[in-house]
């Protein structure tokens, strides 16, 4: 039994039950419609890729349109619904049906006034269908306080599924809940579901647990210096990476670089864009030398661009699930995750992001999410408070110095790896992303032109110092030369004096000798044996 209010997908679900059974499981089915004619049904489901005519030709499907027109019918006395039984019997027999859908059997109540008979007959009908061994799906309009308007869920109560189409903040979300299912431990939560061009898809997204296996593989980020900062080899595979930054700090560019690198390695990527269209992203990334178009052509990269307000969060989550299942990517980019907040409250986004991260982690998919932080807020706090879910958190920030803005990148955290604590200047060039060392000087961290000018200044200072040193060296050398010259002159003078001294001594000696000889000659001539005068003899002795 499927119940729900108008437009929540009851007929859709019933129709899928029958057609998929016929097409995929070779269980022929009967679809009994009380509301839509055969042709209407056929054209309605054609858009979902079901060709009812083909199924009918192959004897897998029978459609019966039961019209109940009150104005045509006059009730006179006792009657029963044997006619309906006969028709169902005929339809079941004609295809050997294993499945049957009655959509919406309650419209009998609007056509026939004797509800006592109807109730009795319906009870008989459901019992009869059970004995036939066919699985029956009955749709019913939701009533006040009861699951169906006429309370027929009392008769068919093996399994009751309610569908709901709720609108909050102008965004509608379809939800499905199993109210009861005999003989089974069923999930009791409300699960969002989607009706897409491939039919209904429902995923029990809240039943994920925290026991995913981890990988020691590393995924290069596409920026070699960033890999170096991340312990040398990039991110861990299957982790969640958050890129925060104010507007225009290059979050998308970094994400695109990551995607580009992954696609070059031949890994599949899924790019969920909530701000820009596919073509816009591809065009913009060309300006920094990244061409994503070839990857798209090769089927490695898939874009999914949608406005966050296009549908509710649950729908986004489901869409992502579906895309992931279809595309089987290794890397998923969510750009930006904060935009989803416009489609729900912060706590909703938080729970959604958590489930998304859990889901992708469980699949071993590396997730890169960007979030936009408003300039005024604390940069180290994300707007949707998902930082605790994140394994690696890169912060891109503006640094406004000297009348210009420059981008800086640093790693706030990176679980399980020794990461750099340094700020790097982040530059977008026409050859991609470059990370540069920032200038760390007495005046603080400098980037951009300030860094350049500071570097130039430092360079000038250095050369000036070098010149000074050189000059000083020359001076000293000159002085040394002059000193050496002086030394030479003095030495020359000294040796001259030495010679002079020598000569003087020699001359004195000769002189003394001559004196001696003279005196001897004198003494000889005088034959005197007089003793020489003390003064003279002393002087003579000294000279000897």
């Amino acid at each position, binding site marked *: 039994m499927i119940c729900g209010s108008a437009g929540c997908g009851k007929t859709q679900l019933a129709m899928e039950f029958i057609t998929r059974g016929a097409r995929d499981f070779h269980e022929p089915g009967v679809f009994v419609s009380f509301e839509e004619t055969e042709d209407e049904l056929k054209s309605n489901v054609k858009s979902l890729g079901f060709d009812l005519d083909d199924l009918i030709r192959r004897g897998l499907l029978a459609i019966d349109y039961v019209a109940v027109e009150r104005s*045509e019918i006059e*009730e*006179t006395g006792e009657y029963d619904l*044997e006619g*309906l039984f006969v028709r169902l019997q005929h339809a079941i027999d004609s295809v050997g049906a294993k499945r049957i859908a009655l959509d919406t059997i309650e419209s009998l109540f609007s*056509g026939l006034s004797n509800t006592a008979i109807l109730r009795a007959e319906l009870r008989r009908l459901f019992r009869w269908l059970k004995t036939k061994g066919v699985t029956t799906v009955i749709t019913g309009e939701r009533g006040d306080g009861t699951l169906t308007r006429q309370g027929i869920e009392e008769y068919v109560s093996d399994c009751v599924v309610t569908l709901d189409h709720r609108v909050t903040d102008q965004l509608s979300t379809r939800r499905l809940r199993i109210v009861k299912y005999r003989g089974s431990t069923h999930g009791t939560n409300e699960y969002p579901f989607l009706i897409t061009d491939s039919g209904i898809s429902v995923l029990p997204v809240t039943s994920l647990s925290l026991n995913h296996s981890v990988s020691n593989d590393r995924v290069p980020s596409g920026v070699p210096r960033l890999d170096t900062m991340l312990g040398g080899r990039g991110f861990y595979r299957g982790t969640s990476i958050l890129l925060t930054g104010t507007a225009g700090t290059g979050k998308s560019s970094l994400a695109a670089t990551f995607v580009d690198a992954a696609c070059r390695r031949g890994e599949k990527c899924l790019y969920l864009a909530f701000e820009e269209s596919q073509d816009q992203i591809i065009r913009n990334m060309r300006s920094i030398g990244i061409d994503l178009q070839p990857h798209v052509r090769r089927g490695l990269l898939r874009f999914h661009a949608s406005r966050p307000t296009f549908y509710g969060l649950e729908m986004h989550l489901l869409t992502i699930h579906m895309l992931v299942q279809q595309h089987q990517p290794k890397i998923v980019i969510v750009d930006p995750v904060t935009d989803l907040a416009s489609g729900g409250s912060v706590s909703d986004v938080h729970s959604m992001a958590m489930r998304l991260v859990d889901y992708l982690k469980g699949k071993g998919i590396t997730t890169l999410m960007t979030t936009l932080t408003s300039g005024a807020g604390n940069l180290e706090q994300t707007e949707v408070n998902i930082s605790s879910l994140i394994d690696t958190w890169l912060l891109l920030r503006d640094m406004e110095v000297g009348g210009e803005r420059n981008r800086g990148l640093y790693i706030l955290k990176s679980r399980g790896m020794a990461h750099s604590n340094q700020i790097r200047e982040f530059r977008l060039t026409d050859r991609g992303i470059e990370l540069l060392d920032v200038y760390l000087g007495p005046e603080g961290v400098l980037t951009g032109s300030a860094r350049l000018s500071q570097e130039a200044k430092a360079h000038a200072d250095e050369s000036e110092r070098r010149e000074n040193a050189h000059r000083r060296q020359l001076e000293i050398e000159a002085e040394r030369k002059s000193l050496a010259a002086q030394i030479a002159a003095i030495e020359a003078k000294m040796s001259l004096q030495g010679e002079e001294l020598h000569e003087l001594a020699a001359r004195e000696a000769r002189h003394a000798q001559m004196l001696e000889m003279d005196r001897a000659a004198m003494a000889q001539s005088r034959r005197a044996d007089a003793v020489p005068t003390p003064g003279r003899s002393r002087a003579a002795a000294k000279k000897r």
Partner: protein
Amino acid sequence: MKKTSASKPSKRSIANDEESAVEWDLRLYIAGRTPKCVAAFGNLQKLCREHMAGQYRIEVIDLLENTQLAKGDQILAIPTLVRKLPEPIKKIIGDLSNTERVLVGLDLRPRS
């Protein structure tokens, strides 16, 4: 089995209006010889004899034998009397025990 219990309709002649020269073409759908069906057939015969003597044709269709025919006239309830002619098609369900309602249903009596 298509049991047609028909008395050859004699045309009622109203000179200036050919269209109103109608025959009552009635079809009674039953499913086996249940008491309700038998009662309905009896009631119908009696009623026709009294109110449209000689101008009617009754066709009784047993759905147990002609299951595919139920779809054509959109039969749900049994017994159902279908007035094929005169148009528009009218359906009267039940055992036809309430003669007044049947007459109203067949437009033989104005709705009160």
